[in-house]
């Protein structure tokens, strides 16, 4: 888990106070892309742990691909929504 930003609490309070929201269409994209990739990563790692098996090279590559897909999606979202 990433360490919280030093001012994360402050940011969260400001989001709440100023009622800063994300457009539902953007949420739709985030949930679809990120959740499906996270779901796959969870399934791969979870089943590896459950079976007490080492992670196969094939599944490790899948995890890398799904992680990369999350990054690609976030980059795309950034390009589409960057201020200015």
């Amino acid at each position: 888990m990433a360490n919280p930003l030093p001012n994360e609490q402050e940011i969260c309070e400001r989001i709440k106070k100023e009622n800063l929201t994300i457009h539902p269409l953007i949420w739709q994209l985030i949930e679809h892309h990120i959740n499906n990739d996270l779901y796959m990563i969870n399934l791969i790692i979870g089943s590896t742990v459950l079976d007490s098996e080492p992670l196969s090279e094939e599944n490790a590559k899948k995890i890398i691909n799904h992680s990369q897909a999350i990054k690609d999606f976030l980059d795309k979202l950034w390009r589409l929504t960057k201020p200015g």
Partner: protein
Amino acid sequence: MSQAKIKLLIVDDEKDICNFVKLLFRKKKLSVYSALSGNQAVRLAKKIKPDIALLDIHLKKGMNGIEVLQKLKELMPACRCVIVTWDEAQEKIKQARALGAAGYLTKPLTANQLLKVVSRIAKNIGQGGK
């Protein structure tokens, strides 16, 4: 799990997810089938008559998961349908419950969560429960 004859239908438009979930449950000796769309799910269900269906609610083409649920419950009321969703939109969950869904799960799920839920339902079927 020892439900060799339990038939599980996975409905998700993500091929990777279908394949992986299939593999996960095959290891548990279930007969597992998958469909990448609602229409395909209904066609397959008519043929195999699944005991349990895991339905992704957000299918991109054709019928959505709720429509598939409705159709499956019409065709085979005994099939236990579990809705898989990435949001917790209460309206959809209520709708799914009203249509006879056995439960709902929110993505991203862990393999353990999936196994527990399906195992519990399969055990219930094995004991003749509804």
